[in-house]
Structures are given as C-alpha cells and as structure tokens.
C-alpha cells in the first residue's frame, strides 16, 4: 500500500514537472535514420539521408523547446529482420522518438509494425509501396515523397491516353515491383489499354537480355520497367542494345536522379517519368540543393533526400507546436499544419498518413540540352497532388475512414 502511494505520488510529480516543461519522454528528441548504407539503394538514401536529416536539425536550431535534438543512424542492409531489430532496440534501449529514411518497401513494412506497436512515428521518405497508407496503414505512418500510385498516374496514364495501348512489364520480383505493376495495370486497363505480358526479374539481375527479348516478341507498344536503381539502368541499356527502343517505348516507372545520371543520354534522352522533387526546379529547390551538395561532394540530392529533410522539418515544427514529443499529439499537429517548403508544394498530411503534394512529370534531357552533368531533367508538367495520389476513400485505410 505504502509502495503504491509512493509510486502514485512520484507519477504525479513527474506529470506535474512534465507539464511545466512540456511533456518529454526524456531530455531530448532523438531521430533515428535507417538506411541502405552500402547496397544497391545507397546512392538514393544512404549517407545523403543522414546528411539531409542532420541539415533539418541544424536549420531548426539544434534544439526544440529547449531540448537538444540528436540524430543516430544505422544500416539495414536492405533486410527486413535487421531493420525491425534495430528499430526495436532504438525504441526500447535508446529512447529514439522517430525513425526516418527507411528504404525498400519490404524493410519499411517490418519497421512500421514495430513502430506502430510502440506508438512511435515513422517518416517514410524513400519507399514506394502504397500499402503504408492503405492496407497496412497506421496512425503513426507519414508517407512523404511519392508512392507507386503517383508514379503510375503521372507516367502511365498520359502514355495510354496518348495511344500506347499494349504494355509489357519487366518487374522487380519483390513487394515494391509487384505493387507498382498491379497499380500501373489498373491505370492501363481503366484507360482502355491492355497488358500483353510480363516477366519478373530478381532484384540485382545483371543480365536483362532474355527478358528484353521476351518483351520484344510480345508486340507491346510500351515496355514498362517496374523496377529501380541499377536494375532499371541495366534493363534500359539492354533494351537499347537489342534495338527495342526503336520499335517500342520504354518507360522507367521509378527513376531516381543518380540512376538517370548513370544512363547514356543517347539511350535515355526523351524518356518521361514522374518524380516528387527535382533539385533544379526553382530558386527554393536550388538554394537547398546547393547547401546539400556542398556537404555531399557535389552529388545532387534525390527526391528521397529532399523528402527526408522536409519530413524531419515538419516533424520538428509539430513537436514545437504541440509542446511535447508524445506521438499522438505530434501527429495531430503534423496533420493539422500545411506542408509548404522547398520540397512540398500545396502539401498536407492526410488522415491516412499520405502526404499529398504536387508531383512533377519530367523528361530526361538529350545530350545537347544539358549544360552540365547535373542538368538531367526538363520539367514538363506539374501534377496536382489530388490527381497524383490515390483518394483516401479508395485506399481502404480503416482507422482513417472511421474518423470521417
């Protein structure tokens, strides 16, 4: 009895002091950056994501409500089990408040489960699967940069409407590729096109020639590459080598800037794609990107890097506005406040965790249009966020729909 009284008194005391200073889990805000540091996605995320989060913390002033902000990082090696183990360790032993930068939809799926159980927020900046705001949605997910739906709407729809009716898929054989293929198929069929065939290539395939040959004999108008990173680069190079690009269009559905840079403009020039961000869009994006490049040996930021900064900044502002780092209160503030910065235009975080913002339809520049090696995209069209992303009613995210 005595003990119980003591505990209650202590709790009350903590609660009281907590209120006085704003309620904090400990004496700092700790951001964990999970990335692929040495694998196929390390140029897209990796060190760049850590730098971007670090920049957001510095730009914010290094402190929120008088408490220091700390950044820790780890490598998932693109393995879901490693990702979830690190997340659990961070939550249980190291008082990490929020995770940013997880990459590959498979890893992020495992991490968000751990985070949701612990009622902690995941800022999803790099992965593509739309599951994080639909079938596997959570009140603690904030999916930032882009998703497969916005890619399919931005890239596939205009092509089908433009008369490319027969499609063939070369798909990365894991969650992300499957999701992208199925969403894109939906868009194709809804617009009167048809899918005439497809192959699933394992992640990290070095030789795409036999897949390209199958695509060629299918008689498709468009060969859609539902993969990314070096897989996309290899597939496109092979398509050009086998003369496919003269007979059919090749559409890269997810192209990050480092991949576009790795492609010969003679092959990739003219290809249209959808991206959440381009460094050279306007003064605001250039200002931020130049600061990023100064820290990263002149490498230009990918949309995942810009998304990592933007989501971290928005989180920190929400912590300040909420006066606490308690996840529910912070998330409520994040969803209340519009997201308007160099990265996000007309952006807001929807109830289901989808950050809806304007996407860009771009064209890869030909060699003679490029003024330097970083001059790779020409912006063709800005796609309104509402047109790019799936509507919440169609996503079937139970907790969000029940709040309607």
């Amino acid at each position, binding site marked *: 009895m005595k003990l119980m009284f003591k505990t209650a008194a202590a709790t009350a005391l903590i609660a009281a002091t907590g209120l006085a200073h704003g309620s904090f889990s400990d004496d700092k805000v700790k951001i964990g950056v999970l990335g692929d540091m040495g694998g196929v996605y390390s140029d897209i995320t990796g060190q760049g994501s850590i730098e971007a989060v670090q920049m957001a913390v510095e730009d914010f002033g290094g402190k929120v409500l008088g408490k220091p902000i700390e950044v820790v990082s780890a490598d998932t090696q693109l393995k879901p089990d490693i990702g979830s183990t690190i997340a659990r360790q961070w939550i249980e032993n190291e008082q990490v408040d929020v995770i940013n930068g997880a990459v590959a939809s498979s890893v992020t799926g495992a991490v968000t489960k751990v985070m949701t159980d612990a009622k902690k927020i995941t800022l999803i900046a790099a992965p593509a699967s739309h599951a994080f705001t639909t079938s596997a949605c959570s009140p603690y997910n904030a999916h930032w940069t882009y998703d497969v739906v916005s890619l399919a709407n931005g890239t596939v729809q205009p092509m089908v409407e433009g008369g490319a009716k027969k499609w063939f898929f070369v798909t990365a054989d894991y969650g992300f590729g499957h999701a992208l293929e199925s969403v894109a198929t939906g868009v194709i069929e809804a617009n009167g096109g048809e899918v005439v065939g497809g192959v*699933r290539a394992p992640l990290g395939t*070095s030789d795409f020639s036999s897949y390209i*040959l199958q695509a*060629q004999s299918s008689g498709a108008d468009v060969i859609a590459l539902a993969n990314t990173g*070096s897989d996309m680069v*290899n597939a496109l190079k092979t398509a050009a080598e086998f003369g496919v690009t003269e007979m059919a269009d090749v559409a890269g559905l997810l192209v990050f800037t480092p991949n576009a840079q*790795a*492609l010969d403009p003679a092959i990739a020039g003219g290809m249209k794609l959808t991206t959440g961000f381009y460094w050279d869009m306007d003064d605001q994006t250039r200002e931020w990107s130049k600061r990023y490049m100064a820290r990263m040996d002149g490498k230009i930021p990918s949309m995942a890097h810009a998304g990592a900064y933007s989501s971290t900044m928005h989180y920190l502002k929400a912590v300040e506005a909420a006066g606490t780092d308690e996840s529910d209160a912070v998330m409520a503030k994040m969803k209340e406040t519009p997201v308007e910065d160099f990265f996000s235009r007309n952006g807001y975080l929807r109830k289901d965790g989808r950050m809806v913002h304007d996407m860009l339809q771009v064209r890869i520049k030909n060699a003679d249009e490029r003024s330097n090696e970083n001059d790779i995209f020409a912006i063709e069209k800005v796609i309104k966020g509402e047109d790019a992303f799936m509507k919440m009613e169609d996503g079937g995210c139970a907790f969000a729909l029940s709040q309607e």
Partner: protein
Amino acid sequence: MATFFDINLFGLFGQLLIGLINGSFYALLALGLAIIFGLLKIINFSQGALYMLGAFAAWIGLNYLGINYWWALILVPLAVGAFGILLERTLIRPIANEDHLYSLLLTFGIALILQGLFTHWFGSSGLSYEMPEELKGGTRLPFMYLPNYRAWIIVFSLVVCAGTWFMIEKTRLGAYLRAGTENAQLMQAFGINVPLLVTLTYGFGVGLAGLAGVLAAPIYTVSPDMGSNILIVVFAIVVIGGMGSIGGAILTGLAMGIIEGLTKYFYPEASNTVIFLVMVLVLLIKPAGLFGKEA
C-alpha cells in the same frame, strides 16, 4: 511465327543464343577460378572483385587516361594480373601451406575491402561505359536481333578459353605447371623456379577476371557489386565442372549459360536458382563434379 507444340521457336532460339553469350562470361570467369584452384589449391573468393576491378579499370582508362576499349583489352588484364601478383606475394604466399579455409577467408576479405572502397569512391548506382564505335549496331537474324557486341563476346571468349586450355594441357610450359603442382620439390630439383611459376599462374588467373571485366563494361553497369553478383554462380559452375578441371570449367560455363537461357524461357522465376539445382544434383550423383577426378 514458327510454333511447335505451342512453343514459340523464335523466342526459344533467342534465349538459347543469349544463354550462350552469358555462358561465355561464366566460362571465362570459371576458367580463372579453375586454374587457380587446380594448380595452386587456392579457393579465390576475390575473383569476383577482380572482375569488378577490371571493369572499373577500363572505365577509369577511358574517362581519365584516354585508353580506348581495344587497348584496355590488353592493358587492363595485365594491370589486374599485376595487382593479383602483388596480392599473392604479400598476402596469400604466407598462408599458402595452411588449410584451404585460410585462403578462402583471406580472399573473401580482400573482396569485401575492394567492394567497399569502390562503393566509397564511385557510389553504388554504377557508371556507364561507352561501347566502342566498331562494335555498335547489330545483325537481324531470322529469330532475333543480335547486337554485334554480343557476338564479339562469344567469339573472343571462346578463343581465349581454347587458347588457355591448349597452353595448359598441350604445351611444355603447361606441363611444367601441372608437374609443379603435383610435386613442387621434385620440380625444383630439376631446376625449375616453382614459386615464380605459382606467382605467374595466379597473375594469369586473375588477369582473366580482369579481361572478363573489360568485356562486361560496355553491356553491364560498371558497379561495385557486379562481382559479388556473379561470383557465387561462377563458383557453382566450377563445382559442377569439377574443382580444378580446366576443360570442365569451360564446358560447364557454356552449358550452364544455355540451361539458364532455357529456364528463362520456360519458367523465368527459377532462372537464378536453376544452376544451384544442377549443382545439388551433380554433388549427389558425382561428388567430384562432371569432369573432376575422383580423389
């Protein structure tokens, strides 16, 4: 279009030809491994990294030093071979008489270091190497479009493989080599410099990996993990062919490329496991490999 029992014959021929092209790569890499294992008893896990090194050396040569593709075909294998000799003299020699496991771990470590360094310097996205002007374009065959460069790979690697096989199995130098590994002391008594022979053999074996790297550069992305992707497959091929069998490595390399091509046609999802399936079967039925000598 010609069909036979619902099989698209044109598609099938295309896949077979592509299998042959991939098989040429496998043969070249497996040959280097088989020489090093057969003659020196070193399980060289850095072969993949040296292949990657060859591709990067070609890229650096073209973009910084003005060395074109044809010169790279000669110079890069020499440079990678020299690097291999350096490795052999400084790191591998001291543990040459230990258990195989030591050389396996050592060369695996070397591979990880090389891969890490190149990721640090060049990033993981990969670089593109421009195809030499002379080999651009292709020929339209009845059943597929054959890029000239791919045809060149088949011809060139078959010539290299056959030449190497001939040198080791049919010439005096090859006889010295084989005898030296059989009984080094006796050979030394005859006045042959066996340690030099061993060093040169290692250099030659890794030079082949460098050569394969140059061949690969124009068609695959030059990236730090290109070696680790292919190494495991090549090891499986060496095991199937019989560890140390030179002819076995070449024939198995070509055969596995073709089997892989067939699988890609009939059941693509299994294409990157079929070689290991064959390996398991061969190990069960003939543990020394198809062309290996029973111990």
